[in-house]
């Protein structure tokens, strides 16, 4: 007998009886052990309160409210259930969104005596916004309503007026008494007029919508698995299926490659894999791909872009600030971003979009976001895994927002209003392939960006794909490439931008030439011994150079001339990333002060 998993979230206003219901469901399905019941009985006032079975934290027991998402587990013959039990208090709406983000179903509680409250609408709305395909409305405390059909019907009608506006939501209703245990695990004799399933029967049989299998293939690379000559790309399939022989589109490079195999430890390999499996993909050709890159269906790729509209749930005490730096974590990418505008705020009880200047804690709005590197995304309504992101405040490191991408934003690219009057500077990261230039310059970028500075990265590999597409790897071509980068860096620097160049730039003479031309120039020697770089071999190039497949490769078959007196030297094999970043920033600070 194979079971599957149903994840559901529960929501209700305070005292609707949610804890009682959950405690009871767990108890009836054997998800609570006797000693846990006894412990709850010890702290209950008079008769056993099932609420104490689920309210975990001391503070909750003291205040008698549930303050944080709690996860509960039980299983029946057919299914394992994961409950995200979320608090009903308005100020904890963010927790409701948290619980809803992974749920297949939302169980919304209504007190039969109170009817549909604004808070109830809020819960249904959040569940719907977070893409939960199905809502189960449990009308509780039917005992206090004399188990009357009229009460149930009128609540149901009330609810449907509102939920008619939630496009695509499937909604079901069950009348219960959590306290008396009516209609929980078996049909209630007190409500013969109700013909539907009990709560447990319903949960056991409700179809779980797995849209992800029929969607185009998506996998964001989490981690590159390397051992000996083996190189595989590990990640969790976001949607679609994959098998050996499939052709994949690799983003952002746009290259294509075929799947050689899907190695797996226990069975040797997967013949075929589908969402949400975690797999390792071995390609039949070497491509340059790493964390944050995506494999996609070549016939049906995601949108690639830096600017999009999204729904945003604001989760921080500090209101959202337009123009401030944030980090976006989307799939396996983490990029610098800013909210360039607030389009509207959602009135959750009327579902109207109102104009807004700011978003405060628990507000839900529609915003335009611009990221510093392109994201590979689908609309959240089509694909939760590639349409969702979180916003992180880079100063406090807290998660401050949860976003759901809706569409690309074509709005004219207005320059962000950052740091006027800043003086420009070129920070030049030179060093061997795999020495850590990209990582270090990215990290420096993040830190500078977080202070509100205007910063731009010029990455050697990137430039070779565009500006220097025509160039090869002879000494002349390499110098020409560096001069072009230098030219762009100079223009930007004169316009007050801090430019972070990361390029091998092996030859001393041309680096020195640029130092003189640009003037505001800091040379950072990203230094790791050749053996270390070769061991890291992030892009697999050393291997190719050693086998002769790649010629004139710096460090192996072409010289690297180390800087004689760089402003900063970072030994990436001896220092942590943070230590290196601090060194660079200390120097930049001195420069900017003088």
């Amino acid at each position, binding site marked *: 007998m194979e079971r599957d998993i149903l994840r559901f979230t529960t929501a209700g206003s305070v005292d609707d009886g949610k804890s009682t219901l959950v405690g009871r469901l767990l108890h009836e399905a054997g998800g609570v052990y006797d000693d846990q019941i006894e412990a709850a009985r010890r702290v209950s006032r008079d008769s056993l309160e099932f609420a104490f079975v689920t309210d*975990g934290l001391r*503070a909750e027991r003291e205040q008698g409210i549930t303050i944080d998402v709690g996860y509960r587990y039980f299983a029946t013959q057919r299914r394992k259930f994961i409950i995200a039990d979320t608090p009903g208090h308005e100020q904890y709406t963010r927790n409701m969104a948290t619980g809803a983000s992974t749920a297949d179903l939302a169980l919304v509680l209504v007190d039969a005596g109170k009817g549909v409250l604004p808070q109830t609408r809020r819960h249904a709305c959040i569940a719907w916004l977070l893409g939960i395909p199905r809502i189960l409305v449990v009308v509780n405390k039917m005992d206090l309503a004399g188990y009357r059909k009229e009460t149930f019907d009128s609540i149901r009608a009330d609810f449907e007026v509102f939920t008619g506006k939630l496009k695509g939501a499937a909604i079901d209703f069950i009348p219960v008494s959590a306290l008396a245990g009516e209609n929980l695990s078996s049909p209630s004799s007190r409500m013969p007029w109700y013909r539907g399933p009990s709560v447990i029967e319903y949960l056991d049989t409700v179809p*779980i919508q797995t849209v992800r299998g029929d969607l185009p293939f998506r996998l964001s690379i989490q981690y590159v698995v390397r051992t000996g000559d083996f190189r595989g790309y590990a990640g969790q399939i976001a949607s679609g299926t994959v098998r050996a022989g499939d052709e994949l589109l690799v983003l952002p490079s746009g290259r294509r490659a075929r799947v050689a195999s899907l190695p797996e430890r226990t069975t040797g390999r997967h013949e075929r894999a589908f969402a949400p499996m975690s797999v390792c993909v071995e390609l039949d050709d070497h491509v340059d791909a790493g964390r944050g890159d995506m494999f996609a269906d070549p016939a049906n790729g995601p949108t690639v872009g830096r600017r999009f509209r999204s729904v945003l749930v604001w989760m921080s005490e500090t209101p959202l600030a337009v123009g401030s730096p944030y980090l976006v974590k989307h799939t396996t990418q983490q990029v610098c971003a800013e909210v360039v505008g607030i389009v509207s705020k959602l009135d959750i009880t009327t579902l109207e979009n109102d104009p807004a200047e700011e978003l405060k804690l628990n507000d839900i709005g529609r915003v335009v976001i611009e990221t510093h590197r392109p994201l590979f995304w689908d609309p959240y309504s089509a694909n939760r895994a590639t349409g969702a992101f*979180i916003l992180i405040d880079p100063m406090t490191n*807290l998660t401050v927002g949860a976003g759901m991408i809706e569409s690309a934003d074509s709005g004219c690219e207005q320059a962000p209003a950052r740091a006027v009057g800043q003086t420009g500077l070129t920070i030049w990261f030179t060093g061997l392939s795999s020495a850590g230039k990209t990582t270090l310059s990215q990290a420096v970028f993040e830190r500078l960006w977080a202070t509100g500075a205007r910063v731009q990265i010029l990455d050697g590999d990137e430039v070779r794909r565009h500006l220097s597409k025509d160039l090869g790897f002879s000494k002349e071509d390499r110098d020409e490439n560096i001069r072009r980068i230098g030219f762009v860096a100079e223009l930007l620097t004169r316009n007050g931008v801090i430019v972070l160049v990361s390029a091998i730039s092996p030859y001393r003479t041309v680096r020195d030439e640029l130092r003189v031309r640009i003037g505001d120039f800091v040379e950072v020697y990203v230094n790791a011994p050749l053996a270390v770089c070769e061991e890291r071999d992030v892009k697999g190039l050393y291997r190719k150079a050693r086998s002769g497949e790649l010629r004139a490769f710096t460090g192996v078959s072409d010289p690297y001339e180390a800087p004689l007196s760089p402003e900063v030297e970072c030994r990436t094999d001896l220092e942590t990333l943070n230590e290196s970043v601090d060194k660079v920033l200390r120097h930049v600070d001195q420069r900017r002060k003088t």
Partner: protein
Amino acid sequence: MQDRLTHLQALEAESLHIFREVAAEFSRPVLMYSIGKDSSVMLRLAQKAFYPAPLPFPLLHVDTSYKFDEMLEFRDRICEENGFRLIVHTAREALRNGANPFRLGTRKCCDLLKTKSLLSALSEGGFDAAIGGARREEEKSRAKERVYSFRDSLGQWDPKNQRPELWNLYNGRIEKGESIRVFPLSNWTELDVWQYIEAESIPVVPLYFAKEREVLVRGETLLPMEHNPPLLPGEHPSMVMCRMRSLGCTYCTGATRSTATTVPEIIAELRTFRRSERENRAIDHDQEGSMELKKREGYF
């Protein structure tokens, strides 16, 4: 055809994703290895996450010296066979100062031997992410624990101020000295763990299987005779057919009467159990809400 993962496959997929996130995002992760069944499952999942490469992080075992010999033998054999890098940290100082559960009581003993030495092991190693096998189902306060649980520079947990955790997008950003505890088994139950052990043929410490053991019978509790717990007047050990449901220090781990000698028998037995697995762990009951207090102070 409708593609649907079984519950074990779905749990596995989620855990593998977590392991890979940690390896990609932290500079010095470590896996807290406690030798028990949950650790054994974690190890297998970690092996799968990085297959065919070896684990990209070491194992850390905090040895209180009150462990069963069978556990240490098992630990050394598993590490040897699989080529794991193992770091053993003992609470030398506390032990030298005479910390023991019989003298101090379980709460103080655990605080000194486990919590403190765990924190010092983590800071000595400079680990920025510690992967643990705790499951939310195990204990009430754990139900609210995040998969990525933030700890300040003193290793403390603030249950009222946790980062919201949405989708599978974990926020692992920290400052120097701060760390993240990571729980890849968050959504697994005891039954899931045993079913996975069966499905994957994962080796576990023989203490989990029933046999005649010499124990002290104290009411409902069966206390193993390892490390000679002091006897109450008139008390004497007896042979009882029993097994361990969860493994900790000898004094804090009670045995359970059982005849289950194989994994399928354990699974069958679990389906009928009405008591939680930690019931016999003395530390959870020192005080109402005690696990939460321990965790605020930095216990795993």
